[in-house]
């Protein structure tokens, strides 16, 4: 169960947000809404431990995330604005790197199955730099399909995706929620996800 207690963040000498609290129980999706520049991305990065809060604390099952260290990191998969894929490597190679990093199954079958679900099977041999933005985004999202971590933190996962990919991702998220997974995401498109959906308004 992910929990955050009155988080505060200061950028330069501007206070981005303060007193932000949230809880995400297994099987729940937290949709972080807010205008641009309200600190949505920074909040997500803070949950992943990339950004240190000025005040407040991120907790997992009651214990502070900082104490859990790598243990906490093993529980989450983060997809940020950047696709985190290397242009020179091909899709499967990129996926292999991610699998190795977070200890997910890295045998060829699982990798190609994940890519196939996102319609990227045909591009297995091609270095990613020739792919379109949407295809790169799909390769990045393939990470979610192979990861076993219960907590997904997604930053604008739907942009640059066509209708087909959005549907696939939607199913993946719903499947994850049914398996008591947790999702924290930000998006501007309204993608209906059934299941326990909570929203957090930033910079209101």
């Amino acid at each position, binding site marked *: 169960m992910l929990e955050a207690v009155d988080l505060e963040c200061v950028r330069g000498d501007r206070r981005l947000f303060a007193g932000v609290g949230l809880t995400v129980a297994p099987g729940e999706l937290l949709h972080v809404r807010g205008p641009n520049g309200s600190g949505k991305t920074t909040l997500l990065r803070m949950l992943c431990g*990339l*950004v240190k809060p000025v005040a407040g604390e991120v907790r997992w099952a009651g214990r502070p995330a900082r104490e859990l260290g790598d243990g906490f*990191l093993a529980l989450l998969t*983060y997809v940020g604005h*950047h696709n*985190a894929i290397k242009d020179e490597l091909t899709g499967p190679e990129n996926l292999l*790197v991610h699998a190795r*990093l977070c200890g997910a199954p890295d045998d060829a079958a699982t990798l190609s199955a994940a890519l196939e679900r996102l319609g990227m099977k045909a591009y297995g041999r091609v270095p990613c730099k020739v792919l379109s933005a949407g295809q790169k985004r799909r390769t990045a999202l393939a990470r979610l399909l192979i990861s076993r971590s219960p907590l997904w933190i997604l930053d604008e996962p739907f942009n640059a995706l066509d209708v087909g990919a959005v549907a696939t991702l939607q199913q993946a998220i719903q499947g994850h929620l049914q398996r008591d997974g947790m999702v924290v995401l930000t998006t501007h498109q309204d993608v209906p996800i059934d299941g326990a959906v909570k929203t957090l308004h930033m910079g209101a």
Partner: protein
Amino acid sequence: MVRRDLTLVMRNRADVATILFFFVIVVSLFPLGVGPEMNILRTIAPGVVWVAALLASMLSLGRMFAADHADGTLEQLLVAPAPLALLVLGKVIAHWLASGVPLVLMAPLLGLQFGLPADGLAVLMVSLLLGTPVLSLVGAIGAALTLGVRGGGVLVSLLVLPLYIPVLIFGAGAVDATVSGLGGQAHLSILAAMLVLAGCFTPWATAAALRISLD
């Protein structure tokens, strides 16, 4: 990690070549500047080769993290459950293999240009073999600190060069001592000690620097 970076390096071989050519050109400049007398060249040879190695490895520091920072893979490293210092070590080893090792292989050829005797060349290679990883290890801290900072390239050299000086002193000293018959054993052992020291401590510092830069 090392495997990934190596495949990456293989994909864009041009970078490795540029570092190597830079090294060769810088070393070959000195005779043109200093004049062709062999005995002068022989005395300055160790220093010249080592300073060129220093500069060459520093040039490629900028690339160590910048590419990963730009496409978001660096973030994934910080979020991965594996200890960051280990991943950093992997990246540094890959950087060393791409930038350090070619220098070590090329150095004897350049040594000949300066009329270094055979044993001098051997020690030159060994000292570079021990020294260049230290350059990559220490340089990684500078590269991480100046990530995404304007004027990063030049700034790295300003931060890192003072820290390179001990390696330069003992590296060039080893060759100098061997050529003058004193035997460079003491220097090499100190270089080896520096390698062990740097190997143990710098990854933590670089990991901390990365966390600061991505904050």
